[in-house]
């Protein structure tokens, strides 16, 4: 099925949702009496303060596009979803949605604990606007996807939360919508079902569904989304490819004074930190060959960081992470975890830290992120965090051909059993 589906995937050109200048303000009255006075007053006297939670949101979502919306709590993510889903009216701006929209803001809405799964599917489905006949036709499929067996005919009150979530998700995605909005609802459920539901979402996307996903899960956003939007204080702070937006968001989390982004190899590199120390030189060596961009699977590599302190520091932690093209960490470590404490360091002093390791990675493109901090995590005293500090390529010339990111060569033994 999937190959047909992908072949038929439409070009991302048709706009399904367009937002222009969307803003949302809540009215805050000093007291209930102020509200009564405002309502009853024949002259339009304003007695409320407006609290803006969203402002100037202008963007388009295309057919078949998957957009991740990230941001801290209170950044306005849920309000934006509710506005797109038509649940809340925007205070200003214009919204246009083309086609059927399905919003999974909370799974299991309209379920009543005393009724069976089957009965609940019918009522909750009608609440979503699916006609009864259509639901009855979809029932076998909903049942099969949920995989809850006999529980289908038992009251929802005896379900585990995972079962209820399976059934609710199965119902909510029984029909492919033009627009699918998913709030963090999907983070529940076991790994197997999460995988299954993500597969279904990917299929929808391939068939042209516009997906809008709110998640704090970096992996989820990066593996599904083509684009990410960072909301900060109710406005769009960043809009671009998931990797750079998430790097920026990650950097902004560590409460640093300055964040800079520059282009590195066509991708956006993010540098953040308080600047108390920085990496002045980064060198990746292959054996005796310094500064290489291409390495072979299994090569001995040396990563050397030259760190310069700009202030007097009691202690220093130096680390790096190797990431694949999707921004997923392949491996990461720092001098705290290796047990090599550094410091104290005086302002102006320079330190060289070398990491020597076998490059047991599969063919592909990788990047190195570096971190210099005062503590073991980058959130505590982040001096410098640099994403995409270096990009390099791994080719496999010496080893047997294999697939995947890591080189886990097995020893093979074959015995004939009679």
């Amino acid at each position, binding site marked *: 099925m999937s190959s047909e589906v992908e072949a038929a995937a439409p070009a991302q050109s048709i706009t399904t949702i367009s937002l222009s200048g969307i803003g949302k303000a*809540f*009215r805050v009255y000093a007291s*209930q009496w102020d*509200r*009564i006075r405002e309502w009853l007053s024949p002259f339009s006297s304003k007695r409320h303060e407006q609290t803006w939670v969203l402002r100037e949101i202008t963007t388009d979502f295309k057919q078949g596009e998957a957009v991740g919306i990230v941001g801290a709590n209170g950044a306005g993510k849920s309000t934006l979803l*509710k506005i797109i*889903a*038509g*649940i*809340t*009216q925007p205070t200003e701006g214009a919204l246009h949605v083309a086609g059927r*929209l399905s*919003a999974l*803001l*909370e799974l299991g*809405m*309209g379920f*009543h604990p*005393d*009724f069976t799964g089957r*009965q609940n599917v*019918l*009522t909750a489905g*009608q*609440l*979503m*606007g699916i*006609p*009864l006949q259509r639901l009855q036709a979809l029932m076998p499929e909903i049942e099969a996807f949920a995989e809850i067996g006999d529980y289908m005919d038992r009251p929802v009150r005896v379900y585990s939360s995972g079962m209820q979530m399976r059934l609710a998700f199965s119902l909510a995605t029984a029909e492919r919508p033009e627009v699918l909005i998913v709030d963090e609802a999907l983070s529940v459920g076991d790994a197997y079902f999460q995988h299954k539901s993500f597969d279904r979402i990917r299929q929808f996307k391939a068939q042209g569904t516009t997906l809008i996903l709110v998640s704090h899960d970096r992996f989820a956003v990066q593996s599904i989304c083509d684009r990410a939007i960072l909301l900060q204080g109710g406005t769009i702070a960043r809009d671009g490819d998931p990797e750079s937006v998430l790097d920026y968001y990650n950097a902004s989390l560590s409460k640093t004074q300055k964040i800079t982004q520059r282009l590195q190899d066509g991708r956006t590199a993010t540098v953040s930190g308080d600047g108390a120390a920085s990496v002045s030189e980064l060198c990746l060596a292959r054996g005796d060959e310094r500064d290489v961009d291409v390495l072979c699977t299994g090569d001995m590599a040396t990563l050397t960081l030259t760190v310069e302190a700009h202030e007097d520091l009691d202690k220093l932690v130096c680390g790096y992470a190797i990431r694949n093209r999707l921004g997923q960490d392949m491996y990461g470590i720092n001098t705290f975890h290796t047990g090599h404490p550094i410091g104290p360091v005086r302002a102006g002093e320079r330190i060289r830290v070398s990491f020597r390791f076998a490059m047991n990675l599969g063919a592909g493109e990788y990047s190195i992120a570096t971190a210099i901090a005062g503590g073991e995590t980058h959130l505590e005293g982040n001096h410098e965090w640099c994403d995409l500090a270096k990009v390099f390529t791994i080719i496999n010339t010496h080893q047997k051909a294999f697939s995947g990111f890591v080189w886990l060569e097995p020893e093979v033994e074959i015995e004939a059993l009679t």
Partner: protein
Amino acid sequence: MVKQHVSAILEYRDFIFASIRREFEIKYLNSALGALWTIINPLALILIYTLVFSRIMQARLPNIDGTYAYSIYLCTGILLWSLFSEIALKAQTVFLEQANLLKKVNFPRLCLPIVVVGNGLLNFMIIATLFAVFLALVGSLPGVEVLALVPIVALTVWFAVALGIALGILNVFFRDVGHFFSVVLQFWFWLTPIVYPLTILPPMAQELMTLNPLAGLITAAQDVVLREMWPNWASLAPAAVVAVLMSVLAVRLYLSRGAEMQDEL
């Protein structure tokens, strides 16, 4: 704009019917006596009033004789009153009660009070049927005049739901409205000739009573059931006027404040 709302509700008619059924089923799903409880409550009320007023206080209805006359009078009034108060009270709290649903799912909100009306009518039908059986047993089943009950009941429901929706919207913004209305209903019950006949009041009070839209409705129903006569249609006018005014108010409130309601839930 109104048309748009109406067509959205029509699209959800399956959901409305399913919800009415569900509400009804919830009532007896987890209880042994089930639907009986729907009947037991008003039955207890009628029994108490009959005992207190008819037996202990020796109340008699003027110009009408018969062992069951007072009970029939009382039943008719309470039946119609319960229909009115159930719908108005539930419609008034339905938005607050279903706040979570309203905040998470996009569907026509007015489906909720419509489900309330459906359930109110369903309960009413059950008790009314039993009441009819009782009337048949004691041999005082009214004749063709019974048809007059259709517009009376319809008008009662209309008034109740219009009032309920208007109050329901206000209740979202001003929670005092709900508490206040429960108190008002208590007074309203005793200011309506349900337990006592209108004629025992002094003439001045009888005049004032015509301003109570429910008095006209309930008196008309009592005329039909007890006196087996066509009601005085003019006495329904106040109820009709108030129902229209309430509907206008409810629609205006819904159109102007409906969207804002979401932010207050």
